[in-house]
């Protein structure tokens, strides 16, 4: 703990008051907080859907909601969580806050564009919320054609347009990060001195820029097809539904890496700070991020093993999918090697890092099951798939996000949260998560299909366990909401470097001034320069 706690007289939070000072701000730190409000809202909207679904599945009979309502629930749960929480959460909240500070810049390269991105995000979210209150949409978040283009009578167009619009927020934020990291680094801050969070943010931005336009045009075609009856994806008019799946997954598989790569970057920061050591094999971890981004574009066909894909294409996509395991494993092994003989901390951010590493490993290894064609055919569209991607997205991304939020919260707010409550909720989340999703591996392997509101009675025990876990998980997510908000006013002052960590963000005050640094820093040290293992790092 820092011995002297300084309260900066001027910082970005007191540099202007009133609603317009926030809604018209160009400060990347304030925009990060705008995103924090946005993604938290959409997270709880998506979470509310999950609550009703797990309540329904507590009993075998479809007694709480009708099958049609259930279809709309899982669709909106997926749309809200994927497009309005998981994809924007870490890049747009933590990335926005940290990218300029970590490179010693005053702001992102295009501050107005950054604010514009937030408005696009909100407008896209409002379109999808409109679809929700206007009666919902029942296609699943995947919008498979021709059901979405011909048969469904629900609000496909506003939902698709909402995602289309929000996509531009991802594209413009990615563009902003790429340009900023290329052109705005402080003197001396070479690429291999960058914190690994920036490498993963950069790799994520590449996917955003290259992949998002493809989902944009695809959803535009879905909407156009509904309006003008074009027939691109309608076999009755000579079109091809599988072509839709190719276009959809060309973005939506890389989107998985948009969600998990930033979390990996966060974990690299947490592990280094929590172990007081440089990340083991820095260049390998850095290039693993880029490798995941590149390989991620070559594996989309594994979503179509049962959709009439040729057996040779399926084999190639299977092999390429296995390859993703290599850079992923490099990261896991290197984090573990970093911890080896480190002075390992048990503070909250590190608890989330441990959670991430364990859960991501399970999620990643079950991904290999699904990349194997034979097993995939057996478990396609079962709860095994659901469990697998929730281990990646909830066990991976949300653990990383919460870990990062706790780690940088003192920097963001200038205050410390209640460490006891934070540890408690981290434990509750870990237990609740595993209780929710581990039974779903078993359910899927036993053959319970996804997307049904009723099921045979022999599956009830595992479903009850899962629903019970979900209620614990829900409580675990609510507690941080409370103590983090509470800390804004009543938390102890953090000081500029409460963790004794290295990195440019810890050299400025908490909260940072509007221009981030009183003087542009010059970097003469390597990343994670924990030279001596003794305590008392001087900020």
């Amino acid at each position, binding site marked *: 703990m820092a011995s002297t706690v300084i309260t900066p007289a001027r910082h970005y939070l007191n540099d202007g008051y009133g609603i317009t000072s926030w809604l018209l701000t160009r400060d990347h730190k304030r925009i990060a907080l705008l995103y924090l409000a946005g993604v938290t809202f959409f997270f709880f909207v998506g979470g509310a859907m999950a609550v009703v679904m797990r309540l329904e599945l507590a009993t075998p009979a479809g007694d709480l909601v009708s099958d049609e309502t259930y279809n709309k629930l899982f669709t909106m749960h997926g749309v809200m969580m994927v497009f309005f929480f998981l994809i924007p959460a870490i890049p747009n909240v933590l990335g926005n806050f940290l990218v300029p500070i970590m490179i010693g810049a005053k702001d992102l390269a295009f501050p107005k564009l950054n604010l514009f991105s937030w408005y696009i995000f909100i407008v896209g979210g409002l379109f999808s919320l409109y679809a929700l209150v206007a009666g919902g949409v029942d296609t699943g978040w995947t919008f498979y054609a021709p059901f979405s283009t011909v048969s469904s009578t629900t609000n496909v167009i506003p939902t698709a347009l909402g995602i289309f619009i929000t996509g531009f927020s991802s594209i413009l934020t990615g563009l902003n990060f790429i*340009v900023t990291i290329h052109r705005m680094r402080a003197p001396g801050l070479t690429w291999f001195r960058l914190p690994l969070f920036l490498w993963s943010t950069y790799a994520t931005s590449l996917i955003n820029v290259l992949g998002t336009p493809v989902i944009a045009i695809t959803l535009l075609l879905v909407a156009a097809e509904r309006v003008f009856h074009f027939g691109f994806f309608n076999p009755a008019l000579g079109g091809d539904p599988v072509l839709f799946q190719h276009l959809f997954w060309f973005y939506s598989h890389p989107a998985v890496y948009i969600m998990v790569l930033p979390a990996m970057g966060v974990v690299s920061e947490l592990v280094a700070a929590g172990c007081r050591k440089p990340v083991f094999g820095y260049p390998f971890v850095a290039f693993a991020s880029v490798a995941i981004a590149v390989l991620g574009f070559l594996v989309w066909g594994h979503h179509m093993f049962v959709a009439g894909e040729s057996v040779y294409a399926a084999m190639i996509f299977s092999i390429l999918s296995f390859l993703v395991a290599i850079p992923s494993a490099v990261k896991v092994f290197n984090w573990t090697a970093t911890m080896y003989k480190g002075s390992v901390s048990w503070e909250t951010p590190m608890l989330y890092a441990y959670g991430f590493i364990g859960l991501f490993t399970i999620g990643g290894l079950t991904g290999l099951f699904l990349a194997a064609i034979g097993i995939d055919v057996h478990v396609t569209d079962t709860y095994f798939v659901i469990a697998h991607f929730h281990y990646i997205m909830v066990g991976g991304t949300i653990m990383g996000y919460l870990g990062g939020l706790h780690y940088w919260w003192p920097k963001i707010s200038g205050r410390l949260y209640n460490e006891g409550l934070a540890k408690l909720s981290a434990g509750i989340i870990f237990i609740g998560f595993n209780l929710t999703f581990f039974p779903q591996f078993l359910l899927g392997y036993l053959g319970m299909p996804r997307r049904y509101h009723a099921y045979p009675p022999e599956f009830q025990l595992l479903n009850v366990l899962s629903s019970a876990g979900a209620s614990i998980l829900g409580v675990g997510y609510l507690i941080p909401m409370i103590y983090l908000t509470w800390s804004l006013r009543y938390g102890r002052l953090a000081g500029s470097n409460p963790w004794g960590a290295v990195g440019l963000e810890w050299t400025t005050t908490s909260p940072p001034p509007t221009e981030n640094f009183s003087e542009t820093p010059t970097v003469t040290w390597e990343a994670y320069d924990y030279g001596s293992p003794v305590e008392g790092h001087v900020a």
Partner: protein
Amino acid sequence: MPDPARHDHRPADAFALQRDGEALAFQHGVLAHHFDSLDQQREATTLGMWVFLVTEVLFFGGLFLVYSVYRTWYPQAFAAASHELDVMLGTINTAALITSSLTMALAVHAAQLGQRRVLMLFLVATIALGSLFLGIKAVEYYHKFTEHHVPGPAFQFEREYIRQAQLFFSLYFVMTGLHALHMIIGIGIMLWMLYWSWRGTITAEYYSPIEISGLYWHFVDIVWIFLFPLLYLLGRHGLH
């Protein structure tokens, strides 16, 4: 009111001349507060536009993929449907766009030299050629409408190819429609640049807005350079 001096963290040994130029640029509001120099700002905006164009390539790339699939599946129907397009109007439009790329390049050159009147002249020429393109495109759309080649219940074509030809015309309208939308945006940007040039914001030191607008304009032209042969010219020799 923020004090501009507060933003200035350049080392004291920087070239005095350059610093004076940038202080001037800052006062005129062309150097944003978070950049250290006009060079850094220009490099950032140029890179930003290139990254945006990469996104655009992927955006149109999805459409070109859809086109390639159905062109491969239904080559004869696509050739027959392509024959319905007006090659003469398409050629005139292609010439208009290529010429507009030339006037755009000359506009950038004039901007770099600080020739304000020449710059404005070439911007007007670019806008005029772009508008000519859109006008001819509107005439073509009108013809397709009267010939019942707009996809939908009223669509008419040889019975043998009617479904596949409808796919061709769906692609025709989506691809040229999105291209035309980009043209309209481009003309809007050019009008804005014309205003900036007239106002005197564009100078030999600060010409990057013209340069990156030009990058966008050339990109939209290149999209048409692909659309024209794919939609208008394909398989023509086989039908005569």
